[in-house]
């Protein structure tokens, strides 16, 4: 039975892991991810979810346990954030080349120092090149849906890669909002059993994560890259079939009044819908402005991005992380690279916003759009703009 309830997003995500019938959860609690793993521990302890919950002693151990569990063919879930993800980093890199279909939720939070428990995308950017499929969500419903979808993508025989779901800490994880839970039978139908092709088994020994001397290392890395690039087709198919079964559609680059608009803003994460309200108000004022939202961060959707911005004259980028001493926003930097060789491309204005949990409000986004248009017209001495900073 489909149910619509008012529930905290973290609890809802834990319930989605239950709907996906995970076999193993290995996790270490950290703000703002805590409620997710706490509720999963409860579900397992109460016998509502038939899974092994491994209460490890650190995030490094959490991911290590996940590697073993996924290699044994178990459906494996973990969640972390910020410093936890940083501590886990060494092992995060191992999952993708070993082709282990782990699903991890990251409750995005800034990295120290100074200490901040509040959201931005600096933790996300620290794992950009780990080879994981990375999906970003904007609201609780998307978080729930994509947690279920992630297992299907990860475990697909044509993919066999780990998947990260990025959801902003607090502004998503700690909000009570309406969530539609799909029926268990419908999830079971959508999400087939995990059939990991070469599970660890004492009777049929296999070697994994072997030593690779120079004569083979490049080939393994190329194989990893091809696998990640090819996963896009499966991701899109998983989203399309989810839409058929449940009526909610996801795409690598999602559009909001962007068709034909001369000015576009691009967002990623939970600020996206606040920005959409600003877009509505600006359009009411008569401005020709639209929005695109990046849903798929890795593999990067080059083709979809180029198509989405083809009519735009100005593209205003919103990043929630800073590449120190570099080009500013990491997403803007990639978007510039993706568009550089196009004969027709918009002028790009790059903004860094909302670091460490500072809200960018509707009027803030309107302000950014107006400033951004002026910068596109007159130019700026800065590589990027940092919105609202006190100097």
């Amino acid at each position: 039975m489909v149910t619509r309830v008012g529930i905290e997003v973290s609890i809802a995500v834990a319930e989605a892991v239950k709907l996906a019938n995970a076999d193993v959860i290995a996790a270490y609690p950290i703000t703002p991810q805590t409620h997710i793993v706490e509720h999963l521990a409860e579900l397992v302890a109460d016998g509502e979810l038939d899974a092994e919950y491994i209460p490890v002693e650190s995030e490094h151990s959490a991911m290590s346990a996940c590697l073993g569990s996924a290699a044994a063919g178990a459906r494996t879930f973990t969640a972390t954030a910020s410093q936890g993800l940083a501590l886990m980093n060494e092992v995060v890199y191992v999952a993708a080349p070993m082709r282990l279909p782990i699903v991890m939720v990251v409750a995005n939070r800034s990295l120290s120092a100074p200490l901040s428990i509040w959201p931005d995308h600096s933790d996300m950017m620290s794992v950009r090149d780990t080879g994981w499929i990375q999906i970003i969500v904007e609201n609780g419903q998307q978080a729930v849906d994509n947690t279920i979808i992630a297992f299907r993508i990860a475990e697909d025989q044509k993919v066999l890669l780990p998947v990260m779901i990025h959801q902003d800490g607090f502004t998503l994880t700690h909000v009570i909002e309406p969530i539609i839970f799909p029926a268990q039978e419908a999830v079971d139908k959508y999400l087939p059993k995990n059939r990991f092709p070469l599970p660890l088994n004492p009777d049929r020994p296999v070697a994994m994560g072997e030593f690779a001397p120079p004569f083979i290392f490049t080939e393994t890395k190329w194989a990893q890259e091809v696998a990640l690039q090819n996963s896009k087709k499966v991701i899109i198919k998983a989203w399309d079939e989810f839409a058929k079964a449940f009526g909610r559609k996801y795409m690598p680059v999602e559009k909001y009044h962007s068709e034909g608009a001369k000015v576009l803003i691009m967002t990623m994460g939970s600020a996206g819908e606040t920005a959409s309200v600003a877009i509505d108000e600006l359009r009411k004022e008569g401005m020709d402005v639209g929005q695109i939202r990046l849903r798929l961060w890795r593999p990067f959707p080059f083709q979809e991005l180029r198509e989405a911005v083809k009519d735009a004259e100005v593209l205003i980028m919103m990043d929630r992380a800073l590449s120190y001493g570099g080009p500013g926003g990491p997403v803007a930097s990639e978007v510039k690279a993706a568009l550089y060789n196009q004969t027709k491309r918009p002028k790009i204005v790059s903004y860094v916003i909302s670091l460490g949990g500072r809200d960018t409000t509707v009027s803030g986004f309107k302000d950014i759009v107006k400033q951004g248009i002026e910068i596109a017209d007159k130019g700026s001495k800065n590589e990027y703009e940092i919105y609202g900073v006190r100097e």
Partner: protein
Amino acid sequence: MIKEKSLIEIRWHGRGGQGAVTTAEILAQAAISEGKFAQAFPSFGPERRGAPVQAFNRIDSREPVRIRADVTEPDYVVVLDPGLLEKVNVTSGLKKGGSVIVNTRKTAKEIQKEFKIKYPVATINASKLAREILGVPIVNTTVLGALIKVTGIVKKESAHAPLEKRFGRLGERNINAMETAYEQVAFEEQ
């Protein structure tokens, strides 16, 4: 045709441990159970018992709530602890036509005069009611009844199930406290 505004924003002022966050959650759940769209969230940060805290609601009878930022221009402000009126500018950003709901034993006129509040004020002596009905001076569910009466934002019956779920065997008493405040709240136009 200009559609009538359907989004209502509420800001709760309380102290850590008074249940502002819990009540915001219950109100959101009540609205969602009526098929509305709603959001509830705390001012995010380390939780400290006794420190001034805020919680927020956005409730929309027509369309999904999309804004994810603290409520800075509320339609209604709820004050669980009258002591906060001296320390916090509770009417900050309150919209024109907005109103304030205060747990106090004073009258609305007294509150308006003492704290120079130029908005309509509704008062409920929730500390007394909570002590009588719940046996403890935890006022959140009592004040919820006053808020529901003043705003009509949800039917009071819609709060029953979330209160029962949250408080278990104490659910009935909390429902009683909420219903009593619903009857007793005094509302004074400015």
